[in-house]
């Protein structure tokens, strides 16, 4: 009953100057709209860039590298162990570049529940021939299905069927720039020479475009089996194990763990691509700052309008106090007015923000580097909407706090006698 009266009085005062109230609400609506549109667009862009770079890179990569042994015989000798030993010009021996015992490692990783997926890879240097011209390139043997699951391989294919890698013998997929340079299109034949000098004739079953020119110029893909055939290697031969893990933040720790456990070298995405994360973070930070600045400006608008309302409604406040409304009641009334403006303006802002971001989502956006993207990227994460409405309520509450305190302190005697 009592709360009802307070709401009723708040409602009446709110609509007494509905034009001003509306302007205050529009201020909130505008800032919430911009907040959501800006954040949706920025985060959409971030996700696009992340997908372009981060999703294509394994979170952890296991491989072996040609490098001098860390443990020289002298350090193993008991006699010399307690002394400083200097050895100059240590040379690498022709060690094996593939991952030892790869099948056992894969089996071990498969049962590890921190890991989302594994994709084996064989990397080999080759020459592509276009008449008399030799072009250096890299051919990577992949398991097309796993590659699709982990790295959305299909999204970068602009022509041909990647599945044909498994069904067509000696088939290959080329980067777009490479294919252009060789003047071949899907269905044509590509001549390849391996580092050891063997010639191969391969059938082009697809062309991909990664968006990164440097990759498109040298990269090509084939099946694991074909890669082994080219390199003349046995059936368990792989050079890289690419891992996607469930929690990307664990990458560095897991990377270290696997390096020790399996005796391979490891790279993790956090260490090798830290700058991407920094970029994403800065962009989000800017969007949030701009959005919150807009909200604070709207908050000052509400503060002004409530202050004016209180000066205008001094008489009403005095009467309310005279007929038995306490200072606390008066404070609640003005806080309710402030919060209503926030809630109304904020809700409209959510709606307009959604519409605005949908509009951005419709604007055509074509870029040669991203064949699957046709419009501007927008993220519709519900968390933006939760943040926006919370911020609008908090801002309007704070903006209403000082004026309503002032209203609660109004001395009715001064007002009533003052006339």
């Amino acid at each position, binding site marked *: *009953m*009592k709360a*009802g*009266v307070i709401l*009723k*009085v708040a409602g*009446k*005062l709110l*609509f*007494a100057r509905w034009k001003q109230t509306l302007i205050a609400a529009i201020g909130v609506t505008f800032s919430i709209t911009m907040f959501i549109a800006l954040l949706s667009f920025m985060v959409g862009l971030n996700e696009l860039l992340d997908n372009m770079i981060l999703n294509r890179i394994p979170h952890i990569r296991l491989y072996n590298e040609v490098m001098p042994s860390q443990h020289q015989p002298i350090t193993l000798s008991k006699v010399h162990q307690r002394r400083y030993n200097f050895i100059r010009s240590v040379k690498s021996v022709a060690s094996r570049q593939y991952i030892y015992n790869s099948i056992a490692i894969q089996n071990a990783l498969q049962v590890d529940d921190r890991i989302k997926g594994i994709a084996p890879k064989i990397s080999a240097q080759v020459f592509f021939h276009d008449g008399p011209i030799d072009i250096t390139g890299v051919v990577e043997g992949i398991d097309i299905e796993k590659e699709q699951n982990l790295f959305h391989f299909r999204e970068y294919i602009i022509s041909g069927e990647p599945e044909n890698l498994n069904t067509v013998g000696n088939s290959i997929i080329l980067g777009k720039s490479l294919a252009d340079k060789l003047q071949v299109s899907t269905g044509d034949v590509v001549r390849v020479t391996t580092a050891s000098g063997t010639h191969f004739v391969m059938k082009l079953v697809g062309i991909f475009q990664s968006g990164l020119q440097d990759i498109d110029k040298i990269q090509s893909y084939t099946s694991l089996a074909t890669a082994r055939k080219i390199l003349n290697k046995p059936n368990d031969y792989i050079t890289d194990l690419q891992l996607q893990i469930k929690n990307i933040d664990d990458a560095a720790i897991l990377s270290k763990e696997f390096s020790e456990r399996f005796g391979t070298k490891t790279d993790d995405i956090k260490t090798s691509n830290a700058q991407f994360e920094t970029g994403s973070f800065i962009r989000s930070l800017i969007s949030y700052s701009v959005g919150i600045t807009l909200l604070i400006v709207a908050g000052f608008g509400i503060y002004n309008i409530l202050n004016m309302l209180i000066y205008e409604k001094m*008489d*009403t406040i*005095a*009467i*309310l*106090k*005279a*007929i*038995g*409304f*306490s*200072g*606390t*009641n008066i404070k609640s009334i003005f806080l309710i007015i402030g919060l209503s403006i926030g809630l109304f303006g904020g809700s409209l802002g959510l709606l307009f923000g959604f519409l605005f971001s949908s509009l951005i989502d419709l604007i055509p956006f074509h870029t040669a580097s991203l064949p699957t993207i046709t419009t501007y990227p927008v993220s519709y994460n519900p968390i933006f909407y939760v943040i926006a409405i919370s911020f609008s309520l908090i801002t309007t509450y704070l903006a209403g706090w000082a004026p309503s305190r002032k209203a609660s302190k109004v*001395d*009715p*005697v001064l007002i*009533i*006698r003052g*006339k």
Partner: protein
Amino acid sequence: MNEVVLEARHISKSFHDPVTLPILKDISFTIKKGEFVSITGKSGCGKSTLLYILSTMDTDYDGELFIEQENMKGKTENQLAYVRNAKIGFVFQFHYLIHEFTVIENVMLPGLKLGAHSEEEVRQRAIDQLRALDIHMLANKKANLISGGEKQRVAIARALINSPSIVLCDEPTGNLDKANSEVVFKIFKHLTRERQQTILVVTHDQEFAANTHRIIEMEDGKIVQK
């Protein structure tokens, strides 16, 4: 009929700005149920100041104030607000209706705030009050669209909605023409006679005061004649 509704015991008040200036000096009196009392005196004699102390809105005074044998000293702001709501009705010189509300809403507001009755009951009581004051046809008009005399009658209806122990009036006819003053006076007279409503009026209108049951005359912050 001998029940004491309001009692002032040795009430004094001074203003301290810019120099200490005594306004009220040792005021003591009682008002019994059903009495129609007026406080008169020249401008600046402190009669309005006294009224606002009696209304519990001004709490800065020495001495004690009892409303229905209850001491108002030491009560919290919220408790005093409840006393004003339930036990005191106000009529001011300027009509002080809330302009955003209709006439009936203005009258209902203290009743809704008290919350002792349902909204329907409060509405019925408000209509009865308005009918008694012969302004029920204005019920759904906006408060700022009616005449001064009508506004003052609405204010009286609002003061009566919670059946207060006492109605306090500050120059209720000060802003009205002769005809309307008479209407208001008749209403007060009627209320005291028919309903035993206790009324305390502050006025400098000697003619008005002369027709009340009892006159308390003030001069320089003291009661000179009861």
